[in-house]
């Protein structure tokens, strides 16, 4: 009896993992986060490598959350991780805006003809300032 329960448990957890990660990978691809970076850096022949990298990154993230896995590598490494984490969030935010056609609609409605690149620059600066205020000024993080 207990063997059947264990087998069921393993089956459910396994299929749950597959469902979650395919949904996650589909989200990453549709938002266009990896596509944008590959096109901007013109490294088309590394696509296979990036996909394998996503595999490792998802595995690393899951293992960190679910276990007591610790690698202590110092403050400098933490700064680097934070920087790239922020870069990822920024790329996803702008890709989402592109996918939802925020900028084209703004350009047509506000009849902007030339200032689009300055608009994007101001959005980036606003995001930096907003993020700093959110983390540093007390009271913004709601528990």
């Amino acid at each position, binding site marked *: 009896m207990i063997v059947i*329960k*264990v087998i069921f*448990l*393993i089956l*459910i*957890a*396994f299929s*749950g*993992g*597959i*469902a*979650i*990660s*395919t949904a*996650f*990978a*589909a989200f*990453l*691809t*549709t938002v*266009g*986060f*990896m*596509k944008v*970076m*590959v*096109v901007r*850096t*013109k*490294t088309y022949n*590394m*696509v*296979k*490598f*990036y*996909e*394998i*990298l*996503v*595999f*490792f*990154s*998802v*595995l*690393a*993230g*899951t293992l*960190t*959350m*679910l*276990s007591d896995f610790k690698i202590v590598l110092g403050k400098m490494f933490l700064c*680097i*991780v934070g920087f*790239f*984490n922020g*870069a*990822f*969030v920024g*790329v*996803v935010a702008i890709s989402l805006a592109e996918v939802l056609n925020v900028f084209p609609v703004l350009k047509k409605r506000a009849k902007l003809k030339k200032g689009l690149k300055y608009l994007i620059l101001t959005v980036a600066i606003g995001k930096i300032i907003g993020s700093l205020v959110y983390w540093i000024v007390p009271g913004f993080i709601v528990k």
Partner: protein
Amino acid sequence: MKNYKVVYVKMKDKILVEEVKDIKIEDIAEIIGDEDLKNEIEKRHILTISSNVNKMYEISLSNVIKAINNMDSSILVHSIGEKETIIKYLYKKEKQNKVWQFCKIVFVSFIVFFGGAVAIMTFHTDVSMPEIHKQIFETFMGVRVDKPLLVQIPYSIGIGLGIILFFNSFTNNIDRYPTPLEIEISKYDADTLIATKEKIENNDSN
């Protein structure tokens, strides 16, 4: 009765020229037809580039047809393929800087790795996945455990397998359909071609 000669013209969608200012028909299109006629048409000059900076040009099928008709007005021209060619003219050859390329790859790899890991961690926190795991374990085993390893280990294996299934990057190159990422990139390239043509036409009319 006039004797029509038929040629088929297949224009390329985009070409790259470096430091060459004289464009012939053979650079921008493929001509199918009678051998002598084909050689004569291909050598005809169609565009002189008069710019000293990097610039994009667009040649449409009508220019090619006019050039062929100037040569011999009894030729019937059929078009197969694109109706315009985009010419990207580089004033100087682009240097392939390997170090810069490597730096870009490293940068993108770091973003993909750390970004993906943190994204899935935030996703799990959003949906309180540890709580769900403990609940599943309790449902089947009757006991509440702090670390339901029996659920977590198959779950982690499933996560890895799901990514491999989705991207399919571990199979041979030969029988591999384009992965979702490559499909997105080629869609983006097709859209870029359309947008580039529009941009060149707008610039010319300004």
